[in-house]
């Protein structure tokens, strides 16, 4: 058994992929033990991606709180996704792979992947649901400019779920030449652990920055959860601090943790939206990045152990929070972290740290189509 997070995790994939997962595990362990790997990642983060990202006090958005935003929206390409894409690109080079395949929902991971493929000279194929291509058009155009081939997925829900399945099928077919650059802390082991470690820079920086700004740890740490990679990266910095409350915010119509059941999707056992027969249910969210019926196995574990709690935000609440942050702080957030922003007022905490995982340029059409 390779379940890593209590009863969650594992490698529920066809046999064809097992040797590649073994190879990836070995390369990852070797890289972690190699100081030059860490040094290269640090250099890329600083000189290419723009780390560290700042912490911004949002005084007008939340006048009754001391709310700090971790500004992953200011990272190159506009979202936290680049942290993971850069790390996995270095790993793919160590594995000798020349071709990268990835899935994308909102397009942020697709853009991050296309970006690192341009930077490292890899061939790049991104699978994206046809419905997501419609609602995230600017990102489709960016990926094309960066030299990636975007392949529409026209069946099923035409969103991230099917795009992920098609990416895995491509990987099964081309596993000898191809690295699957998964975008969230989901999938078969070792992916959830790799993505967590590559995103943990968010939590490490945030912890040091809030101690610098406030001289104490936050009372609550908040992040949005789709697959859950920005959240797990942020939470990683605070899980050991028992006094810090950890809150994940899901889209109410895609609440894999809030309303899901134990199930198997895309290679791991986690909490998923499924019916009583194990058939995966459709998720519904205005935010393409949260519109996914699964979630990283570590989140299911954190929920079960009580270390984190997970709440939901509706489309309308997210839109209201999106507009409110834009007007009060001059920051246009992505719709995904707008879900987390919507829950700030009701938290029983004064000093709050929130991961602003991406910027909202990609969402303008979706927001403008719904007048206030």
């Amino acid at each position: 058994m390779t379940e890593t997070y209590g009863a969650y995790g594992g490698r529920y994939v066809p046999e064809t992929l097992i040797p590649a997962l073994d190879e990836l595990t070995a390369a990852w362990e070797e890289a972690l033990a190699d100081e030059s790997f860490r040094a290269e990642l640090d250099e890329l983060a600083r000189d290419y991606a723009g780390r560290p990202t700042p912490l911004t006090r949002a005084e007008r958005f939340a006048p009754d709180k001391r709310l700090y935003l971790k500004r992953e929206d200011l990272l190159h390409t506009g979202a936290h996704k680049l942290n993971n894409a850069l790390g996995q690109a270095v790993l793919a080079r160590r594995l000798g792979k020349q071709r990268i395949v990835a899935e994308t929902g909102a397009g942020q991971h697709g853009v991050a992947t296309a970006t690192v493929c341009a930077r490292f000279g890899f061939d790049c194929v991104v699978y994206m649901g046809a419905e997501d291509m419609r609602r995230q058009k600017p990102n489709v155009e960016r990926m094309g400019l960066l030299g990636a081939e975007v392949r529409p997925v026209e069946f099923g829900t035409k969103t991230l779920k099917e795009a992920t399945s098609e990416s895995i099928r491509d990987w099964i077919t081309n596993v000898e030449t191809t690295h699957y650059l998964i975008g969230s802390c989901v999938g078969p082991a070792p992916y959830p652990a790799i993505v967590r470690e590559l995103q943990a820079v968010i939590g490490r920086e945030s912890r040091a920055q809030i101690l610098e700004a406030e001289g104490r740890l936050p009372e609550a740490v908040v992040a949005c959860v789709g697959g859950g990679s920005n959240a797990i990266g942020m939470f990683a910095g605070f899980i050991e601090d028992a006094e810090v409350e950890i809150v994940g915010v899901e889209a109410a119509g895609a609440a894999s943790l809030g309303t899901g059941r134990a199930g198997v999707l895309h290679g791991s056992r986690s909490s998923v939206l499924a019916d009583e027969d194990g058939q995966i249910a459709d998720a519904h969210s205005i935010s393409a990045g949260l519109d996914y019926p699964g979630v990283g196995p570590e989140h299911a574990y954190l929920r079960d152990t009580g270390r984190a709690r997970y709440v939901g935000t509706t489309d309308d609440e997210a839109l209201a929070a999106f507009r409110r942050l834009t007007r009060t702080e001059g920051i246009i957030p992505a719709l995904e972290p707008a879900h987390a922003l919507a829950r700030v007022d009701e938290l029983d905490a004064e000093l709050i740290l929130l991961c602003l995982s991406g910027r909202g340029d990609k969402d303008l059409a979706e927001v403008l189509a719904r007048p206030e």
Partner: protein
Amino acid sequence: MSKTLAIYLMSGPNTPDLAEAAVEGGADLVELGFPFSDPLADGPVVRRAAERALAEGMRTKACLDCLAAVRERVEVPLVPMTYSSLLEAYGWERFAEDARAAGAASLIVADLPAGERPGLRRIQLVAPTSTDERLRIAAAATDGWLYLVTVTGTTGARAGLSSSLAQLAERARAVAPGVELYAGFGISTPADARAAAALTDGVVVGSRALEVAEDGPSALRDYVASLRDALDQGT
């Protein structure tokens, strides 16, 4: 010795008729697909068949009923082929017990590689990418025969037989002498079937059989008979 011919059918209202036709055509074993919404190991033909079956209400209980109905019509071994999510929801052991009670000889779980859930007895799959160590683990754990995936890829017809099969069959023979080897994935024509059977003890035909089955039992019977002839000529 005669080579085994296994035919894959998706569970559905017509499946007992189709299974009977397949056996009349010369099938020695019927694999019965239990449809899943997100079948990672499957190409477009099986995926679409699964979508249709789910739309017809073929959930786990209905599939077990279908299995029992097929059991009443044919004598050959029946093997459900499905995905982990269904077993997780139904209960892993309970599924194996109820499938056996409905007439299954064993089962195949496409996304459950050897080593995961070792308590669940099932037919194991190996692939061209499997190391010799993986072949050993799968052969030791398998329930009856070992399923050789002929291609590095998903299910579905290919032009010609994969060149990977010869090496995989040779390696599997070396590490697991005495274990029966059946080749599947990508086999669609009588010529493919004969070529694959020359390297193994049997073949599994899925996607092409599903396509032919859309034209009804008689078309399926003729198609399976053409595969049967090819296998019998080859021996």
